């Protein structure tokens, strides 16, 4: 996670008192892309998780399954990596599907706090209003001009995880901090992928 733990940008304006937003890096142990129409039926047996069929939602458990597209999902774990990649890949290939290991492809950050929604709105055209993008919602869009995957992992106020391609990680982190500097922000410690937070 060396990419993500950039110090605060120079010129950031901290606001005394409670920070408007806390942001910090998130560790990903495994991230596997599952594809294919046949994958949904196999997933509970193969991965112990249900693949959400509703667009732009996630299903949570020991493995979080995020909807990426019709017949494409991202399985994510935070603490424990997934094993037996090749056997599972072959099972899916046989059934008309595919499994790709993209565990190192993305870096992730989590934002929470009263102004988190505004920090995200500085770079993303999605509507993060809780009535539109509530807990359990995920969506792919952009932050500034970088493709980004957002997931509302719950909590109160809700924590939003932002995932971006590793090579853009430092830029996006800087962008988030710059946007957050208006409200004052804290950098939280790195923590593993949270799954769904229930408070």
């Amino acid at each position, binding site marked *: 996670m060396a990419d993500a733990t950039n110090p605060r940008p120079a010129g950031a304006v901290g606001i005394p008192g409670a920070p408007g937003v806390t942001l910090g890096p998130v560790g990903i142990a495994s991230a596997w892309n599952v594809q294919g129409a046949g994958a949904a039926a196999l997933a509970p047996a193969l991965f112990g998780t249900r693949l959400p069929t509703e*667009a732009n939602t996630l299903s949570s458990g020991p493995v979080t399954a995020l909807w990426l597209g019709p017949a494409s999902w991202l399985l994510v774990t935070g603490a424990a990596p997934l094993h037996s990649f090749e056997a599972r890949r072959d099972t899916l290939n046989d059934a008309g599907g595919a499994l790709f290991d993209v565990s190192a492809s993305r870096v992730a950050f989590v934002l929470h706090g009263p102004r988190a929604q505004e920090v995200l709105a500085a770079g993303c055209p999605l509507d993060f209003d809780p009535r539109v*993008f509530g807990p359990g919602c995920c969506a*792919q869009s952009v932050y500034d001009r970088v493709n980004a995957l957002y997931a509302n992992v719950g909590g109160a106020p809700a924590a939003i995880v932002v995932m971006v391609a590793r090579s853009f990680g430092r830029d996006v982190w800087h962008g988030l901090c710059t946007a957050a500097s208006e409200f004052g922000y804290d950098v939280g410690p790195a923590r593993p992928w949270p799954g769904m937070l229930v408070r």
Partner: protein
Amino acid sequence: MLLIPCPWCGPRNQIEFSYGGDATVRRPPLDAPMEAWTDYVYLRDNPRGPHDELWLHAAGCRRWVVVRRDTRTHEIAGSAAAGPGPAGAGRVIDASGGPPAEAA
């Protein structure tokens, strides 16, 4: 900045999409004469009015979609999966029906 209806993700900002050109041209059969191939590669209509065009939801669900856009007004009549799409997909959505909130 257009609001493009993705058949899966709903209305999304144009910045998430990548333009793919005329959706009405068809690759000729492999044994087609040279003339058919030059037409396919080089000839495009430039219609005034509704036009079916390809867009890739590049920063979203990574599906190619056909969008019917009026070239005079940018009004979008609807969109559908380009090609048959995965099972259960390919529905044509009516752009005026859904809410223009940019997340599903």
